[in-house]
């Protein structure tokens, strides 16, 4: 990358803003038949974006993550990819044991690539665009109601450019045992493109569901590809006594920018687990924002981030306790090699009425090189007086004594390192319920740890491309 002067930077940022304005104008014109509420929702989102602009390092919530490379790039809205994948290209990415699989290519639902399955009565899985068209009344009460467009530019942009994504609705007392797999594929383009996948998951009272969001890049033999920005947002409504598991898996290539926001609204005694696994992406920001709005809710916020090269993996947790007797547990483990930079920002807000809150937060990190970096920051804001809040963070390295112990039993150095890394990562795996989702994640983690352990194989993200080009 060449050095830019200050004025050039301003010029590119302005140019980038112009691109968004043109795109938004285009969207408003083209989507003629849109309901007034949706039109207004988008308009408000865009106004917020223009008001706030992109965050900078001076913004407290972004002080460890420089998103200038995103702010300065004139991304265009993705239309149809030049290299559309075939079903065969996606074979390696299917999730065995999934009940239903929706595939999105550059943010748009692809019926041809998706694999619908058998669902019990009471469960609906569809593309959001189709659901809005078919039954807007099912969407309107929830869509855009929880995600705060005032929080940052990305939430605002998500709502402004809201078009497609997944819609999952599980009716009262309906139980889906097998997971729903949402696969978001970024294809290669010769100009920078942006997608804004927007998902809505509604689990009614006493229902159960597991949803897996997975983000991948597919280059399909393209010689070179421009950076892509995936700005994903999911609103998850967990009704009273519901049990919901959500997985966010980021394994795009290292050129990709991925910003994701999971906004969870929990009802009374709802039990929600959020599992994030970040193994790919160049600049990644993973926002998880549960609001425990009903009494006796429980929330597990579990994550693993694994980075090498110059990857930047930022995890921003905002856990809001808004009702009494709720429990939240945050556990994030980071493994960082080479010049990778990880961030864990764990913010807990206990509102005035949220007595008997039990909030716990732990962030553990392994740094595998002198140049890897982690910033970890707890932030507790407590406005109730009868609460239990704990937090802790550790930063360490692979212990030489443990490595020697394994090697002295005949295990070669790379395998010994991988075992120790896997052991560290397994703390995160152990918090996932056994099943198809966990098996899938375990396999992925295993693959992404191999290169960090010193196996002479390309990084997992690059390996994806090797298998793609076959």
């Amino acid at each position, binding site marked *: 990358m060449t050095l830019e002067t200050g004025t050039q930077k301003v010029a590119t940022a302005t140019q980038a803003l112009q691109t968004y304005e043109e795109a938004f104008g285009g969207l408003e014109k083209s989507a003629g038949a849109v309901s007034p509420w949706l039109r207004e929702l988008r308009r408000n989102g865009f106004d917020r974006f223009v008001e706030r602009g992109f965050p900078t390092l001076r913004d407290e919530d972004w002080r460890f993550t420089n998103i200038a490379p995103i702010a300065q790039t004139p991304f265009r809205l993705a239309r149809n990819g030049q290299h559309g994948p075939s079903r065969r290209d996606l074979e390696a990415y299917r999730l065995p044991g999934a009940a239903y699989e929706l595939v999105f290519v550059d943010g748009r639902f692809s019926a041809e690539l998706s694999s619908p399955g058998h669902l019990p009565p009471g469960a609906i899985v569809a593309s959001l665009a189709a659901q809005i068209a078919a039954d807007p009344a099912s969407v309107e009460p929830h869509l855009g109601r929880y995600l705060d467009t005032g929080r940052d530019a990305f939430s605002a942009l998500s709502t402004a450019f809201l078009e497609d994504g997944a819609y999952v609705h599980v009716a009262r007392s309906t139980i889906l045992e097998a997971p729903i797999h949402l696969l978001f594929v970024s294809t290669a383009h010769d100009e920078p493109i942006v997608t804004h996948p927007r998902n809505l998951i509604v689990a009614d009272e006493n229902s159960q569901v597991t949803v897996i969001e997975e983000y991948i890049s597919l280059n399909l033999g393209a010689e070179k590809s421009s950076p892509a920005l995936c700005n994903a947002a999911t609103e998850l409504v967990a009704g009273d006594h519901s049990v919901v598991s959500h997985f966010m898996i980021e394994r795009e290539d290292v050129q990709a920018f991925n910003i994701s926001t999971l906004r969870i609204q929990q009802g009374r005694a709802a039990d929600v687990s959020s599992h994030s696994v970040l193994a790919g992406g160049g600049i990644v920001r993973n926002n998880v924002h549960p609001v425990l709005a009903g009494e006796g809710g429980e929330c597990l916020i579990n994550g693993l981030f694994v980075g090498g090269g110059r990857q930047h993996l930022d995890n921003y947790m905002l856990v809001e306790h808004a009702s009494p007797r709720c429990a939240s547990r945050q556990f994030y483990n980071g493994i960082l090699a080479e010049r990778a930079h990880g961030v864990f920002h764990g913010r807990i807000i206990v509102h005035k009425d949220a007595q008997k809150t039990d909030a716990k937060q732990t962030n553990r990190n392994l740094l595998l090189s002198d140049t890897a970096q982690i910033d970890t920051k707890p932030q507790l804001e407590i406005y109730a007086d009868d609460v239990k809040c704990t937090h802790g963070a550790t930063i360490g390295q692979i212990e030489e004594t443990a490595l020697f112990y394994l090697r002295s039993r005949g295990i*070669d150095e790379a395998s010994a390192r991988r075992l120790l890394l896997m*052991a560290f990562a397994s703390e995160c795996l152990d918090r996932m319920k056994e099943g198809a989702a966990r098996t899938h994640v375990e396999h992925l983690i295993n693959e992404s740890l191999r290169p960090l352990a010193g196996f002479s194989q390309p990084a997992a993200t690059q390996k994806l491309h090797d298998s793609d080009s076959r």
Partner: protein
Amino acid sequence: MSLLEIKNLHVRVADREILKGIDLTIDSGQVHSIMGPNGSGKSTLAQVLARRESYEVTGGEILFNGKDLLAMKPEEAACEGVFLAFQYPVEIPGISNAYFLRSALNAMRKYRGLEEMDAMDFLPKLREKLKLLHMDDKLLNRSVNEAFSGGEKKRNEILQMAVLEPKLAILDETDSGLDIDALRIVAEGVNAMRSPERAVLVVTHYQRLLNYIVPDRVHVLVDGRIVRSGGPELALHLEDKGYVDIEGAAGRA
């Protein structure tokens, strides 16, 4: 050919010479003991034999089965048949004992060109060894050494030895911190493994373990040198008189 031949071994740790010319030969089927006061270099010798890389060998050579042991990595030495029962077994959270043992065994089988063993074939073999050491099945599913008692850790070392069936087993102060019952169990485990194809090197400060694992030869290590060698009676002599008169003799020599 002897199983182990150590010739004029000099070792440094952080700029201090710890071993100052060790000569020691052990044949298959033999049990040798190295005794000595604290800080004499006993553990250093054990660690060098297991090829810990932070110990710098500045002179001498070690032949194991006729091969240059000092050219081997720790995993190669292990696969060739060297086993060290650690004085302080390492806790490894997140890896189950059973998985660890199978990984180790399979690494060695692979090295020797044998097929890897799956869990179904491995578990019965493991259970049999567990019985020998009076160990609870539950220890297999727990993380390696994590929250094990001192005695459980030491027994776990011997369990590993029983599974891996080394040619040379080095016990580094395996007796320290063991009560007499645990000591007997550990000794039984070691004795059950004595065979004409295997040698044992018992590194210890005290003679007591040698009541149960009777050595063929005893060597006294003082200040980085073997100052006296003899039969099992030498250990009894040391127990009786302590190291003082031998240290004195070494000082005069």
